[in-house]
Structures are given as structure tokens and as C-alpha cells.
């Protein structure tokens, strides 16, 4: 399991007064203090945002949520890993205001009953089955230009920075958030998207989110966000909320099983867990 550094208190979350004391700004008039931009400040949102539904993530994003009128890049180690777990809380809000969820080239077949359980009624879902990279790009661009209500989710694994820049230019006139999903390999490439987020899974029903790029200061560390998909939260027993411990136990049983011809017993044990 990858080690995860807990998110540390960034300097920008220091109380403002303490900061003023330290750099001697307290004597200055408040008008002047407000006029001074410090590098550690996050940019106040010029655009509307959609709250993500995760307080810890909201606190780190400029403006306190997913930005509208701009591109948001979500990187994942593999496709169809945690899209809905990360976005469903914010999408639920957009949908309740009468928006549509427009999916461009999703990697797998969307399962409407599952999405309904996430709070996205089937009437708002639109699946645009664009296959080739150029089709995906064209479709996404057309949607962005149309300025729909709701959200645009586009899976663009092979997009180039120039194409993203073009999308970003169009997205500036679009009032809905535009999410672009790309593989995690793209994290080293430059990207014109103002917000880039890497999301991966933690073992104990959590998402590990890193903010690679945002307006304002750099964010260090990893955010750990609790998230249980759909209705599973109602049926998981307290023991199942910590699968990592179960894993450890399974591995331990594995060690005991070394040298045995068939590990029938441990399989049954695992199932009965």
C-alpha cells in the first residue's frame, strides 16, 4: 500500500492576525492590507464554484469548490476508478437545480440504477458514446460551447495540451463545470487547466486527493476524504468499514498456508468474514 502523508496545516490556513503581526502589517490601514497580495493567499474566486461536498477539499480549492467557467482536470491511476465517488456530491447539487450530466466517452457502460442511488435521476443523464479521440474532443467542444446547465464529464485520455488549451478557452464562456478525466501518467505534462487534481483510492473507504495545480499557492500533501459508494454505507458493518485490517489478517492467514496443497479453508474463512 502506498504510504500517505497526512495533509499538514498549510501556511495559508494560519489566522490572518498572526500573519499580520509577524510581518508588521497590523499598523497599516485595512485598505492597504487588503490591497497587498501575498503569495500564500489563495485567489478569491472570480467565478462561481460548486461545493464538492467534502469540507476538507472545499477548504483547499480556490473559492471553495469545483470552479465553473474553467476546465478541471481529474487524473486517476486507471479509468472508472472513483469518478462518481469524487463528483457525485457536487453533481447532486447541480442536478437539483435542473442541470444535465453529459458524459462524453465514458470508459464503461454507465449503470443508471447505480447513478440514481447516487442522487442523479435517470432523466438528467446523457451518454455521448464518442469513441475516437477526435470525436471525443469535438463533442466536448460542442457541449462546452452550448453552455448547458449541469456538468460536462469528458474522458479524454489522449488529449494534447494544445487541445486542452482550446477547450479551456471555450470553457471560460461556459457557466457549468467541465471535468476532464485523464490517466495519472499525464501528471508530469504541462496542462492549461487551472485546476488539476489526482485522485486515487484508499483502502478504508476513502479517497486520496492531491491538488497538483490550483490558482494561488501550491498545495502540498494528500487530502484523505471519507467516501463510501452509493447505498453500501447502509449495509456495511463496522468491521467492514476497515477492510485494510481484514486484508492484513488475510495476508497473515496466507503465511500460515504456505506449503499447503490447497488453501480451501482460508478461502472459506475469507468468505465468512
Amino acid at each position, binding site marked *: 500500500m502506498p504510504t500517505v502523508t497526512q495533509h499538514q496545516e498549510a501556511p495559508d490556513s494560519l489566522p490572518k492576525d498572526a500573519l499580520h503581526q509577524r510581518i508588521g502589517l497590523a499598523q497599516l490601514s485595512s485598505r492597504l492590507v487588503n490591497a497587498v497580495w501575498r503569495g500564500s493567499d489563495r485567489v478569491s474566486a472570480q467565478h462561481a464554484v460548486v461545493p464538492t461536498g467534502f469540507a476538507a477539499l472545499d477548504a483547499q480549492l480556490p473559492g471553495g469548490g469545483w470552479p465553473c467557467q474553467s476546465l478541471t482536470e481529474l487524473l486517476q491511476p486507471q479509468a472508472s476508478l472513483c469518478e462518481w465517488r469524487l463528483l457525485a456530491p457536487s453533481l447532486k447539487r447541480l442536478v437539483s437545480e435542473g442541470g*444535465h450530466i453529459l458524459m462524453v466517452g465514458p470508459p*464503461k457502460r454507465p449503470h443508471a440504477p447505480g447513478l440514481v442511488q447516487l442522487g442523479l435521476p435517470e432523466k438528467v443523464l446523457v451518454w455521448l*458514446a464518442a469513441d475516437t479521440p477526435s470525436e471525443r474532443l469535438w463533442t466536448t467542444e460542442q457541449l462546452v460551447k452550448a453552455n448547458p446547465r449541469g456538468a460536462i464529464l469528458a474522458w479524454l485520455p489522449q488529449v494534447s495540451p494544445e487541445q486542452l488549451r482550446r477547450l479551456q478557452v471555450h470553457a471560460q464562456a461556459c457557466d457549468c463545470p467541465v471535468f476532464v478525466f485523464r490517466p495519472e501518467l499525464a501528471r508530469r505534462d504541462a496542462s492549461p487547466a487551472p485546476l488539476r487534481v489526482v485522485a486515487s483510492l484508499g483502502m478504508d473507504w476513502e479517497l486520496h486527493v492531491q491538488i497538483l495545480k490550483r490558482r494561488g499557492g501550491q498545495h502540498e500533501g494528500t487530502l484523505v476524504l471519507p467516501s463510501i459508494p452509493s447505498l453500501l454505507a447502509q449495509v456495511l458493518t463496522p468491521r467492514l468499514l476497515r477492510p485494510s485490517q481484514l486484508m492484513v489478517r488475510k495476508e497473515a492467514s496466507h503465511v500460515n498456508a504456505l506449503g499447503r496443497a490447497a488453501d480451501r479453508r482460508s478461502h472459506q474463512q475469507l468468505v465468512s468474514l
Partner: protein
Amino acid sequence: MSMHWAALLTDVRTSNSSACDMAGIALWALQFTPRVTCSGQAVMLEITQSLRLFGGQAQLHAQVESGAKEMGVRFTAWAPTSLAALAFAEAGIADGFAKPLAQMLDLLPFDCLSAVKVHAATLARLGCKTLADVRKLPRSGISRRFDKELLLALDQAYGLRPEICRWITLPLSFAARLELPGRVDTASGLLFGARRLLLQMSGWLAARHAGVTAFTLRWRHDDMRACTAGEGGDITIRTAEPTQNVDHLCRLLAEHLAQVVLLAPASDIEVLATEVSPLAEKNHSLLHDTAKQSEVLGQVLERIEARLGKKRVLLPKLVEDHRLECMQCWQALDSPRSNAVINPTHVPQPAWILRTPLKLAMLENRPIYQGPLLLLLGPDRVEGSWWHQTQSSENASQSKTVQRDYWVALSVHAGALWIFQQRLDAEDAAWYLHGHFA
């Protein structure tokens, strides 16, 4: 009723292609009024009928003036008669409505009117300097001494006699050429000249109440080109819907020109409106209209469907069924939508499913998918539907009977999965992956 004229004075001294410029400006000006005429170096617009359009007189003046500046017009003047407007433009007075017309015209030197300028030498010897001096001369004497054009021009300029003009008519198709002031080596350098031609095209389109869906930019290489370079080249740019928007067309053109490499320096360019379709005027709403936005979305989805093909823009329909693959079907855009209320299932459902379940490899009798799986919850037994028969491609009927035990499994790398154990055949009780709780 007094008339309202604008005179757009072009600059012949700097522009070496004034003839085509004049025609272009006249075409562009047709968007404001159908009454446009050319005389000498100026284009004249009679916009009395349009004064209450385009947001009122001040707005109209501003639009004409700013547009004319972009078209390369040197000076714009306004007056109640065309000859007066032309005279004011020559003299550098913008607003001919500031004072009564006769007062303002009287102050101008007499060579402002071309019909009077012909006799400049004689009039100067008579001691005339301004138009007022010419007017003070006895009319009978003038008509005997000079030709009748002089009196006619004077009367027309002062609004005492009606003016007769040859109005420019709108051509059926649009093609405008522009000789570039210098040789242009890069394709993106053509954009500046092309913008001027596109402005003309938008004026022509506005006058025809039409929008362009395709236009062609042609360029001709200059005479010093290499023999391999050929005559020139062209690109055709298409838009999704008819438009007159110059900025939009320029953006499109810029993106296309960025990929073009000129084989030789270009000396002149030409823009043609290749495909034109009528543009329906829309009523604008004062309020933010949500219904309209969804209408726009509908149009976009239709357009995407037209490009990608049928069955590529899909809307879900829930079906009451307990089998995972039959719970939903994705329909094309135009299929009827039922309003039947479907009871949602209370079993946790994955957000993604696989079209055909993926048979999982086994390791020590346990299913593996990107490493070992931890079975968390289950079994959730789904079976039955022996009555459901479908015709497969070989015309053999195939039963959609299922006998499955579903489990929620957890993988370190792939997250929570929805897998099942096939119970139909005892000999190969295989495990399959069917969905992802992403």
C-alpha cells in the same frame, strides 16, 4: 421630412486599391440601410429609415463610425443632404446637424463641392472664397456664365432641390478581393486582411438576412514565386450553424490558418461566401431563460448525433428487472420516453457495468482481479427469468436465464467491485466481474 446622410470618405492616397475598397465599404454599409451610393472617393448612406433601429440614433452613429474606421475609412460626416455630408467630410466637420444647414455650409470654402470646384479659377478671380460668396452671385448670371451643374449642385447641397442617386444593389453572391499592401510570408499574416473582407461579408449577410455556413479564403502567390509553388491556395471553413458573427469566423479562420504553410509569399486574398442559408431572427428575452438553454442543449445533442451517428447519443430508461444487465436500457435521442414510475432497487448498485461480464482468473480457488479480491458482502442471489428468450445472430434462441450470487468485492487497486459467481453449471462455477462502484 429631412433626410439623414452619412458620408464615408476613403483615403485614396494611402490605399492603392481604392476601387475595390469602395465597393467593399458599400457592401458593408448595406447592413444599415438599403440606400447606399458611391460618389468620387466617398460612400454615402441614407439612413433616415434606420434611425430608430440599431438602438437609436446615437448608437447607430457610433456603430457606423467604429465599423467604418475598421474598414479603412478616413472620415465620417453626417448631414441632411448627401452633397453637404460630402462637403463636411472634405472639410473635416463630423456633425452637420449642429446648426442650420445653410449657416454651416456658407462657411465652407467653395471647392468642397466638386461641381463648383470645376470653376475654381474663374470664381477665385471673381473674389469668391466660401460657398456663401458663390451663393451671393446673381443666379441668372451664374446660369449664363457657368454650366447648369453648378446651380444644381448648390441647390441640392442646400436641400432646395431633390437629389437623384444611383443606389448600389446587393449582389446575389459574395466574393471580395483585397490586394495586400505587402508580401505576406506566413499564413497567419493573412488574417488581418481577411478580417476586413469578413467584415464586408458580414455586412452583405446582414443585408440579405442570411448566415454563412461555409466560406472560402483564397490567396494568390505573388509573381516572384518559385515555379513549384503554383498559383495559390485556398481553405474552406465550415460552421455548424449559419452565422454573421465576424469574431467567430475570424477565430475559426485563425485556427485553420495556423495549420497552413504558404508555399510562397501571398500578394492578394479573396473571400467567398460558399454556402449561405437564411438566418431566422430570434426574440431576445429580458429574463434569464432556462427553457431556452435546454433548447440549445437539445440542438447541440442533435448536431452531435448527426455527426457521430444514430445510437451514439443515448438517454437511459429504467426497467423493472432484477437482472443487472436488464435494469436499464440506453435509448436513442428521439425514442419515446415513458413516464412510468419505476421502483428503485434497494440493493446497492454499481455506477459502471461491463457490457459482458469479465471472467475472472482464479488463484487458489479465489477470484483475482488486479491482485487478490476481498469478498465483503454477499451473497445476493439473482436467478430466474427462464421465460426470457432472445434470438441470437445465428437464429438460435438463447435463454437469458441467470443463476448468480453477487458479491461486493474489494480490490486494492480497482476499488469496490460487483462480482458474481455463476451457479448455472456445476462444473465451471466461475467468477465474473460485472460492475464497478466508482
